[in-house]
């Protein structure tokens, strides 16, 4: 078997028709995003009196991270394409180890212990663990005899996703932990029943409702719906009646428990500032909460909203330049785009991500190998989640959670991990002709 692999590798490199063909459209989208991101970071930190490329500027640092990304890309190109499949579990195990280590050895930054400090650079294991989880999940789900309608499969897949998520939650980084919920798309694509997928969104809706509606009314409403459904079943459906009735009862019970627990979570488990960040969206007129948690979101909306249709122009954003929006190079980088490029800029960036996601799904679906397809869905899901939560939080549609906008936000760990995530997929895609022959 070993021999076969070696011979295959040599054939690949010697055969011109099998030359590495990256999906250049995706690569261009990537390059455009990172470059525009650097320009935006520059707009945030730019001061007329300082040098354009001062080493202390975040934009300069981001350019260095971009450079580092190229090294990583070259490494990915050089590594054998089978590595990612063969070592998926190992990478995953390494990531879990790092997540455990950071709990003990990490430095505490802004309330969460998610960073390793190495001199002037920091490293965030939670960024790389997304990639590791995507790999591991892909490998597991593509194994033979794995079907998502088996409870055992569901539990194992859940564990692969849940373990890193729980560890990250333990670090105090709620935003990054939430990213793992995006794997629902992967599971759905790989055969998770419709009802599960629907339940996921129903749970989100129910959770939002608990914020706006008093618990007791919600429970009464749920019970009434259950009663009507059961009456309907009793009167109209003859076959499997008792089973349907029991299912309805169970679903209702779970829903009620969920409502009660989300209420409990919001009021007792979440930290004060997290609760405030949620409540500021629920009661935007409550002056007390707004004073405590409304500043970010208010300033962010002002920056974006003041951009108008065409924006104020590159380096012309007053809110951007004058530090009104906190965390502006990182989580709130979209404010700069909104302010300096206006709605047109928003349109470009939303279209850009939409097209990128479409492209990724397209690429994933053209794979004959399940591993690559599942991994591709993982990449798309993670990017989608980051993009949607990040934008939603800057425009006041979602509570403020600290997760970056892929390719745009300042930060070495995040840029490198997104680069790895994307380019591993592109690499696997480039070798799609040979993937099936691996083993």
């Amino acid at each position, binding site marked *: 078997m070993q021999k076969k692999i070696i011979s295959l590798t040599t054939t690949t490199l010697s055969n011109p028709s099998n030359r590495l063909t990256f999906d250049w459209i995706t690569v261009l989208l990537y390059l455009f995003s990172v470059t525009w991101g650097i320009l935006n970071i520059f707009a945030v930190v730019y001061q007329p009196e300082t040098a354009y490329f001062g080493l202390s500027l975040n934009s300069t640092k981001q350019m260095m991270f971009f450079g580092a990304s190229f090294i990583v890309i070259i490494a990915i190109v050089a590594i054998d394409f089978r590595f990612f499949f063969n070592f998926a579990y190992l990478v995953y195990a390494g990531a879990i180890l790092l997540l455990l280590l950071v709990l003990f050895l990490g430095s505490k930054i802004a309330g969460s212990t998610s960073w390793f400090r190495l001199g002037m650079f920091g490293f965030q294991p939670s960024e790389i663990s997304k990639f590791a989880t995507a790999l591991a999940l892909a490998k597991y789900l593509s194994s033979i005899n794995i079907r998502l309608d088996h409870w055992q499969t569901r539990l194992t897949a859940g564990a692969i996703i849940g373990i890193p998520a729980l560890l990250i939650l333990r670090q105090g980084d709620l935003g990054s932990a939430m990213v793992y919920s995006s794997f629902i798309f992967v599971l759905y694509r790989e055969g998770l029943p419709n009802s599960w997928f629907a339940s996921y969104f129903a749970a989100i809706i129910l959770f939002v409702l608990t914020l706006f509606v008093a618990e007791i009314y919600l429970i009464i409403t749920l019970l009434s719906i259950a009663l009507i459904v059961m009456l309907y079943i009793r009167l109209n459906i003859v076959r499997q009646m008792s089973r349907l009735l029991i299912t309805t009862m169970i679903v209702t019970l779970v829903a009620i428990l969920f409502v009660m627990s989300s209420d409990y979570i919001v009021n007792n488990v979440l930290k004060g500032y997290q609760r405030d960040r949620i409540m500021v969206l629920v009661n935007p007129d409550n002056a007390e909460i707004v004073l405590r948690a409304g500043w970010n979101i208010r300033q962010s909306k*002002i920056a974006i*909203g*003041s951009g*108008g249709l065409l924006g104020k122009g590159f380096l012309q954003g*007053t809110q951007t330049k004058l530090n009104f929006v906190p965390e502006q190079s990182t989580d709130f980088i979209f404010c700069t785009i909104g302010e300096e490029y206006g*709605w047109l800029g928003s349109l470009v960036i939303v279209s850009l991500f939409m097209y990128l996601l479409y492209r990724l799904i397209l690429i994933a679906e053209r794979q004959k190998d399940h591993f690559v397809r599942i991994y591709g869905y993982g990449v798309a899901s993670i990017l989608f989640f980051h993009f949607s939560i990040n934008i939603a939080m800057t*425009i006041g*549609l979602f509570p403020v959670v600290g997760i970056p906008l892929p390719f745009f936000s300042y930060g070495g760990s995040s840029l490198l991990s997104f680069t790895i995530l994307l380019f591993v997929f592109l690499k696997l895609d480039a070798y799609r002709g040979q993937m099936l022959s691996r083993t």
Partner: protein
Amino acid sequence: MNEQRRWIILAIFAFVGLVFLLKLFSIQVLSEEYRLAAEANAIKKTIKHPHRGLIYDRNGKLLVANEPIFTIMVIPNQVRLQSTQDTLTICQLFKITLKEFNTKMKKAKETPRIPSVFIKQISQLEFAKIQDRLIDFSGFYAELKTIRTYPSVSLAHVLGYIGEITKGQLDKDTTHSYVPGDYIGISGIEASYEKELRGRLGVKYTLVDAQGNDKGAYNSGISDTLAKAGKDLTLTIDVDLQQYAEKIMSNKRGSIVAIEPNTGEILAMVSSPTYDPNMLIVGKSFIKNYANLSKDDERPLFNRPVMALYPPGSTFKVVQALVGLQEEVLVPETRLLCDWNLVKCHPHGSPANVHESIQYSCNPYYFKVFRRIIYQNKIVKQKINDSVTVMKELPDGDGRIGLNKWNEYMHRFGLGERIGVDLPNDLGGFMPNFAFYNKKHGEGNWQFNNIYSLGIGQGEMSIVPLQMANIAAIIANKGYFYTPHLVKSIGKDGHKRPEYTQKRETGIDKKHFDVVIRAMRDVVYAGTVNPQGILYDLVMCGKTGTVQNPHGEDHSVFIAFAPMDNPKIAIAVYVENGGFGGAVSAPIASLIIEKYIKGEVSRTGIEASMMNATFTRNAARYYWQPRPENFLSRAPRKADKEESKDKEGEEDEQKKESPKNIDAIILEDKNKENILEEDSKK
């Protein structure tokens, strides 16, 4: 197997993207709110207050100056008070209690990023003490404003005072000339020349970052404007003369108005009792001082020369004589019997002609003159045959025509209406007309007997001292006048308001004035003026008056001008409860004339006795408590406009209301409301 699910997933992605674009469209394109909030965030508007114009007297002496005053401002989100000790230090520094500190901070914290007023009106002296310590407390800083001081310590009523602009005035200010906390002229020249004095606010826009640090000019300073200083004013007042006149009047109640006849410029304008204008400087003592002044029984805030209504008394006879001569119901030689049955008089040679009637102030003479004016008994030449012509009076005509004609003359003399002086609160007095008597007595129910006292300057008529002085100026000018005014030049170019350079003619021939002027000379030198009031080295012409006062001693009135040829000063002196006009007011007038024309007073004995004379104890009541005549004299003006309404009851009502009105004028300074209105109209 599940290939079709990709479409569901893509649909969810697309749905989220679409929601974002719609939401972004609504906050970026549809809503103005965020654009405005961004400006409010990043652009700090700094108001630069202009220098308020200074006020000088006609000789260039400074009357009103500016002085800095400090306001302590606070920006709550920059305040860093580490301990209660810090807070206590602040309290000590500003001399406030902890409780006051907390209330102030709580109020300021409503707008945590915007400066709020913390402590108002800290004087330069107080500020010097705390200035160095203030730097230690971030978030607190001082803002400089200027207030007024009055180095001349006189002329309070003319200069007026300034105060903080009210909410109502701010709302009416359409020209954006004020910001809250600004000072605005409330009375006197400060109010009537507010627009000239205030200058223009400057605005500077700077960029500030989230911490409030200055980040340079906004838009390279294109939209900034410089503050434009207010214009300096030069008054017509001679402050030396003013102070001299105030000194004479200091222990008396009354008014002095002196006018330069050929220009209408007011040289002195005294209202006594007066007050030190520095009492009403903006500051902590303002409220207390103002309350004391307004509660004072002597009503020091009341500006008598333009607000006190008196019947003119005998001084008015000169006006009647002039009207009679012009209307040809008199000729200079017309002699009329001093008939004590018509109206009481005092012993003098009779029958008197025009000259003597003025010289001796004959009451029945002017009863008759006024009757002739009303009934238009013109004296005409009638040829009996070729060699004999006799002078003959025409028979009585329509009294209505006569009274209307007389009213027309009053109007030309600037009587019965506001004369138009550049003060915000002048009154015009009242000259009764035909409609007024119809209302008072009912149409057809009155006759000459009801109005004859007008002939001797009594009855329902009333005028203010300024108008009285202006009569003296008209006679000095032989027939014309310029509206009396207080501001000689506005700003550097030195023009006065155009309305004060327009000659107003009375329509009475010059020759008639010669008759009256000669008589007025003899009033002084051989008439009703006491020897103390006689000037020997320049010729003064005058007319005494004694205003009957049912509430106490009569008021002493005297008008005069001097020198007789080429008059330099016309004057009216009112001494309330001073008794006979020739005994008190005339000597005072002579002293002021002497002081003005010669620069100093040589008759020190007379000066001393006039300085010491006091009549305030004679008062049973204060003159400003309106007398019945005054009720009538003010009220019907309002009723004139609404002639269709019926009157009897209304009149009674107005009687009751009038005292209120007058109080209101005194206490409220009605100009407070007027200035801005006038501004916006312009």
